[in-house]
C-alpha cells in the first residue's frame, strides 16, 4: 500500500498544521496495527460533538434527505450484516468498535462517509479517528465499501438513531 500525499491539510483542535510529504515517505508510516505515531500535543482526546468536523476524504458535503430513503436503509442493513456487524453493535455498547447508537449525533455525515471509505488516511491523520483508535486499539478494517454502499450504511445509521 502506498499513498502519495503531496500536500494535505489537516485541522486539529483549531490549529492549522501543514503536512507536505513528498511521495509519502517519512510521516506516519502506514503500518497496519501500530497506532499511528502522533506528535505530542497533537492528539485531540476530546471525542465529543463535532459539528463542523468533516474528516479527511472526498466527502465535503453529504446532503441528507427527509424522510429516510427506505431502499438505502435496507441496502445499508445488508451491508452492515456482512461487513460491519462483527465489530459494531447497534446499541451503545462497544464491542470491538463503538456501538452505533447515537453515531449520527456524534459525527457529521461527511466524517462518517470519509471514515468508512478512507479509513487508513483518517486513522493516520484525523485527530478524532485517532482518539477512537486509542480507545479501541484495533484499526478499523478497510472493508472496501463503494461510495454508494457507504451512503446506504449512513442511512441505516440514521434509521438506527431514530431519525426521519
Amino acid at each position, binding site marked *: 500500500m502506498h499513498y502519495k500525499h503531496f500536500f494535505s491539510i489537516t485541522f486539529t483542535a483549531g490549529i492549522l498544521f501543514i503536512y507536505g510529504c513528498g511521495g509519502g515517505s517519512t510521516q506516519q508510516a502506514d503500518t497496519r496495527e501500530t497506532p499511528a505515531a502522533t506528535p505530542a500535543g497533537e492528539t485531540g482526546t476530546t471525542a465529543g460533538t463535532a459539528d463542523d468536523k468533516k474528516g479527511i476524504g472526498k466527502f465535503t458535503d453529504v446532503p441528507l434527505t427527509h424522510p429516510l430513503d427506505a431502499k438505502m436503509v435496507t441496502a445499508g442493513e445488508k451491508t452492515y450484516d456482512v*461487513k460491519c456487524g462483527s465489530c459494531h453493535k447497534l446499541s451503545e455498547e462497544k464491542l470491538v468498535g463503538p456501538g452505533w447508537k447515537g453515531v449520527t449525533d456524534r459525527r457529521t455525515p461527511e466524517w462518517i462517509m470519509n471514515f468508512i471509505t478512507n479509513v487508513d488516511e483518517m486513522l493516520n491523520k484525523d485527530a478524532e479517528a485517532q482518539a477512537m483508535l486509542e480507545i479501541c486499539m484495533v484499526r478499523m478494517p478497510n472493508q472496501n465499501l463503494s461510495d454508494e454502499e457507504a451512503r446506504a450504511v449512513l442511512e441505516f445509521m440514521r434509521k438506527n438513531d431514530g431519525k426521519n
Partner: protein
Amino acid sequence: MKKFLLFSLSLGAVALLPSCKMKTAETAVSGDAASKVYVAPGKYDEFYNFVSGGFNGQVSVYGLPSGRLLKIIPVFSVFPENGYGYSEETKAMLNTTAGLIPWDDQHHLTLSQTNGEQDGRWLFANANNTPRVARIDLTTFKTVEILQLPNSAGNHSSPYLTENTEYVVAGTRFAVPIGEQQDVPISSFKENFKSTVSFISVDKNSGRMNVAFQVVLPGMDLDLSRAGKGPSHGWFFFSTYNTEQANTLLEVNASEKDKDFIVAINWQKAEAYAKAGKGKKMKVQYAHNVFHEEEQSATSTTETEVIVLDPNELKDIVYMIPCPKSPHGCDVDPSGEYIVGSGKLAALIPVFSYQKIIKAIDAKDFEGDYQGIPVLKYNTVLHGEVQKPGLGPLHTEFDANGNAYTSMFLSSEIVKWNVKSLEVLDRAPTYYSIGHLCVPGGDTKKPWGKYVIAYNKITKDRYLPTGPELAQSAQLYDISGEKMKLLLDFPTVGEPHYAQAIAADMIKDKSVKIYDINKNKHPYVAMGEKNAKVVRKGNRVDIYMTAIRSHLNPDNIEGVYVGDEVYFHVTNLEQDWDVPHGFAIKNNPNAELLIMPGETVTLKFVPEKAGIYPYYCTDFCSALHQEMQGYLRVSPKGSNVPLKFGTGEMKAVAANQ
C-alpha cells in the same frame, strides 16, 4: 583497491585467453554489479521470474533484478504455508486416478502467449512423475486447473505451447504400454512400449484445458519440445533419445547411435485429422481437476476417453530429423526459422532450417524411415553447426538481436552465439554446472532481453554451508552489452529446471487484492456474523465460522462428540488487502488453514478424545491477535451435552438438526 587490481588483472587475462577457462568467483563480478541489482526498499522489481521448483512440486516467484523471493505457488504438492492440499476445498486439486498424490516433481513452465508474445494471463506447469499439466491464474497466483494425462509416463517435454496458446503439449519421457494390456515383460519394449504426445487445447476465454488428441509414436524417450512460431506456426518439435529402444542401462545402451532424432509434428494437420474423425477413440481414465473461483472450491472429474492418432496410418503428420547424440534442448528462435538441437553428448550445436525442412518434405527427400516414419537427411535440412561451443549443450534462449544463449552443463558456462552466422560471440562461466537458463521472453517472438538467468545444478561453496543439503544457486547476468556480465547470485528453493520471466507491468496491476465477500458462493459461507452457526446432521457437524479482527464467531462450541466429523468453514469477513486470518485447532492431524479476505476455507477435524480443544488465529492480524481464540468442547460419544455455540452469548441449537 586490491579487489580492483585483481579484477583488472583478470580482465586482462580474459582478453588474452578467450578460452573457456574458469574465472574465480572473486574476479567474475565487475564493480557496478551491486547498483544494477539494488532495488531500494519500497521499490518494485522490473520482472517477475517464475521458477520451477523441481522435486518440491511447486513454483517459486522471484523479483528481478533483485533475486528476492516473492512467493511460492503450490501446484503439485501440498503446502503447509497456506493449507493447499489440506483444506477440503483444495484436496481435489491433487486427485488423480491413483488417489491424492501429495508430492510430485515439477520441471517446466510456460507463460501463455498471444501472437507469439507473452500475454500475462496464465502460467502452465508440468508434473513430471504422475503426468499432469497445471494452469495457474496470474491474477490470483493460484493453481486453478490440473489435468492428468492418459497413456503417459514421465511428462517431461511439457508444458510448451503454441503461439496463441491454442495447445499446450505433453510428451512422454518414458515409453510405456498403452491400452488394456499393461502387464507385459519389460524386455518386450520394442513391441509393446509406445511414446505419446498429448495436445491439450486451451479455451481462449476461460483457459479451460482439454486433451484434444494424442499422437502415438514408437517407443523412445521424448525429451523437450517447442512449438514453431511465425512461419513455422503449425509445427511442434521434440528432441528424443533412446531411439535405440533400450530398456536397461540406458546410460550406455541409449547412447550407441551417432544420431537420435528431432521429431517434427504438423499439429495443424493432426488437428484437422482429429476433427475429421480420423483418430481412434480409446477408453482411458484420467482426472480433470478445476478450482471454481466463485465457490472457492475444487472439483475432480474422471474423464473416460481420448482420441489417438497413428502416424503409420496418417502418413503426413510426423517426420524425423536426425540430430547428433541424444539431443536435450530443442529450441526455436524468435523468427521461427531456426530450430536448435542441443546434443548433450555432442561437441557442436546443430541448427536446422524450417524452410529446408518443408522443402525436403515437399520433395519427399527422405533417407529412409524409422518404424514407418519418414526420416529427413541431416545435411539437407541443416542451416549449420556451431563449432566448438563448449561441452554439454543443454538449452538455448534468445535475445531480440539475433543472438542465442546456450547453457553448457559440462563446461559450466553460458555461450552466446549468433543464430545466423553461428559464430560464438562470448562465454561466461557459471557456478556451477548450469542446467536451464532463461532470458525474459527468450522463448517468444519478442524477447525482452536484458538479462539471462542461469539455474545451476551444483551449488557447493556459493553460500554459507547448511549441512549436506544446500539451496540451489541461480545467477543473474546482464546481457544488454556485447559481453555478458555476472551481476548476482541468489539461492532458490527446490531444484529449478526451466523458468520464465515477464515484465512486471504485464501482471502487477491485474493482481487481485481481496475476494469480494458479496460474490462468495461457497456453499458453507457465513455471510456476516449473523449467519455464523453450527449444524449437526448425524455425526457430521458443520461450523459456519467468521473471522474478523479480532475474534472468531463462534468462539465457544459445545455438544460435539468423539468421532464426529467436524468441519470448520471459516469465512474471513475482511475486505482489506493483506489481512488474511489463520485457523488451527489443537491435536488436529489435518493441519491448519490460511484464509484470504472474503474467502471461505474448510478444515476437517475428527476428535478422538473427549476434552477441551482450543483454537485460534495463526496469522498475526491485529493488536488483539492473541485474543482471537476460542474453545471447542468434545464430549464422549453418546453423552447428552447439548449443541451450543456463540461469541458472547451462547445459542442452543434445536435438537432435531
